[in-house]
């Protein structure tokens, strides 16, 4: 099959629209008959990424490419960047403010979850410039 390319603009500070991109990708993968476990992994990784963009980076861009063998996701923002990546990757560590915690986020599970649910995970981040996640989930 030819690969399918999707692009999403994630608006900053709008929790009501966060999740729109992951829901759309989930629907597309369902229509393509991709295994539920793969769909779940992709959806969770993308939703966590979307939420991170809204909480920390004022939004960003998501590109998704669906090929026969894998789903490639690139999540790029021009936010503040991550100061201490080692800490950010630790379960339970969060810099989310209290108002975000009241919404049920800020558990410090975002990046660890993204890593857990993807087969390939690379993060490029620079303080003052932004953060880009390069993710792949294999289709078994």
């Amino acid at each position: 099959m030819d690969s399918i390319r999707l692009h999403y603009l994630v608006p900053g500070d709008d929790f009501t629209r966060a999740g729109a991109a992951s829901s759309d990708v989930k629907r597309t993968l369902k229509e393509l008959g991709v295994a539920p476990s793969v769909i779940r992994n992709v959806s969770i990784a993308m939703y966590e990424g979307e939420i991170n963009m809204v909480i920390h980076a004022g939004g960003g861009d998501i590109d998704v490419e669906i090929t026969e063998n894998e789903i490639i996701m690139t999540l790029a923002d021009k936010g503040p960047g991550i100061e201490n990546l080692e800490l950010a990757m630790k379960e339970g560590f969060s810099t989310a403010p209290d108002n975000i915690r009241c919404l049920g986020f800020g558990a410090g599970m975002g990046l660890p979850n993204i890593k857990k649910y993807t087969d390939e995970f690379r993060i490029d981040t620079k303080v003052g410039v932004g953060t880009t996640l390069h993710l792949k989930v294999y289709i078994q």
Partner: protein
Amino acid sequence: MKVNELKDKLGLEVLTEGDLNAECTGCYSGDLLSWVMSKAEAGDIWLTVMGNINAVAVSVLCDCACIILTEKAALDDTAKIKAEAQGVTILRSEKNAYQLGVEISKLI
């Protein structure tokens, strides 16, 4: 057990109606959304006090059978609209997560 039977057996208030014939195969309790996303299984009854739009998104991503808002927790208007649009069943109880969990364990 189907969501419809669960609702009747536990005397739950129906706030939004999705697929009432969905099969409940397990139960998960939690309010931290990332934690829930990481641990809840498809078919779970999800017990939470989070009645916001993000909880609806998490329920969809995890393919939960339904959400039960515990201890009469409130459901936001935007969450209600989103749940109806996405076909998510949201039920509500006066009981807390522990009490509901005990009762659900006897049913499924």
